[in-house]
């Protein structure tokens, strides 16, 4: 296999991140493929999928993490979505939420729109960006053992973290989450015990 093993399969990586899921894990996804990956790993009331608002996933995660400090919050997003909200990484770094992890699925491309090269594909390293901003921990990983270690790190709530997962540039079949934002919001809040207005 050799060279082909350098990058992760996105579906396998996300499935392992969400395997044996703790009831204390809350997940926010960026729009597009990361939402399909999380959906493919198994829908859950404690998942909030963005279908738009590009650049906003990390900030939704921050607000959730600050309102629910006893839970672990995982944002699963793509490299271009993270790049569009780059300032949000600075906002998160200075807020230092111990229970927030940003997992960036980085294929170096705008995968949803025709696989055009993206900024990370042309040299920007988001883990180093986040480290320089002051994240508690950052890493760039490309093997499954590191994904399993990341799984444990998410539950530890030991500082705001950002992990770049180097994935292969390919589009597996879409697995579509629900698109009704009101439904997604209400079921998420209900899972945490909050009422619907």
């Amino acid at each position, binding site marked *: 296999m050799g060279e082909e093993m350098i990058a992760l399969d996105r579906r396998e990586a996300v499935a392992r991140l969400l395997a044996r899921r703790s009831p204390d894990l809350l997940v926010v996804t960026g729009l597009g493929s990361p939402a399909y990956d999380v959906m493919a790993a198994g829908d859950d009331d404690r998942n909030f999928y963005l279908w*738009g*608002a590009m650049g*906003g996933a990390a900030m*939704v995660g921050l*607000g959730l993490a600050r309102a629910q400090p006893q839970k672990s919050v995982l944002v699963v997003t793509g490299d271009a979505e993270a790049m569009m909200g780059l300032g949000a990484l600075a906002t998160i770094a200075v807020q230092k939420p111990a229970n927030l992890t940003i997992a960036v699925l980085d294929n170096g491309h705008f995968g949803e729109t025709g696989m055009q090269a993206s900024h990370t594909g042309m040299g920007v390293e988001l883990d180093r960006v986040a480290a320089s901003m002051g994240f508690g921990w950052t890493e760039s990983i490309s093997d499954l053992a590191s994904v399993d270690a990341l799984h444990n790190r998410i539950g530890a709530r030991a500082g705001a973290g950002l992990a770049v997962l180097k994935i292969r540039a390919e589009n597996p079949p879409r697995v579509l989450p629900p698109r009704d934002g*009101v439904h997604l*919001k209400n079921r998420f809040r209900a899972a945490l015990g909050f009422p619907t*207005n």
Partner: protein
Amino acid sequence: MSGTTAIAPVADWRSDVFRVLKRHDIRHVAYVPDAGHAAAIDMAVADPAIQAVALTTEEEGIGYLAGAWLGGERGALLMQSSGVGNCINMLALPAAGRFPLLMVVTMRGDWAEFNPWQNPMGQATEKALNLMGVLTWRADRADDVEPLLHGAASMAFNGDSACAVLLGQRLIGEKQWVKK
């Protein structure tokens, strides 16, 4: 009320803003600073019951407050009118999810503006918010701030609506560009 002892006691709209936010159980104040918001920001930062979050750009606050609401808590977003332009696409989030959103916007390019670069966005602010489904109210007098903000907060959190109160330049006062 903690944190208000140093504030002028009578009809100060600047402390009214914070007082109304507290009355509506606001736990998060996200902001890009503006001089008109300085009092509310200082009080939010000093209040241990409030998470005060400085943003690099205003649209971050839309996502942040949606996340806080998913987690069961209320917040408000403070910004200048120029920042409304930065929020446009992110306003799809409260619209699609019918999230409560309370924005307090200090106006520029609105009245007695010295800097013409503020005028395009200032003149488009209320229309742009309305185009994206945000309900708006304008306060140009000090005694309008408290009731309008209370009304907006009520409709945001009781009715899952996006609501903005615009604080006019006549209320805030003419910016002094040259020392006299």
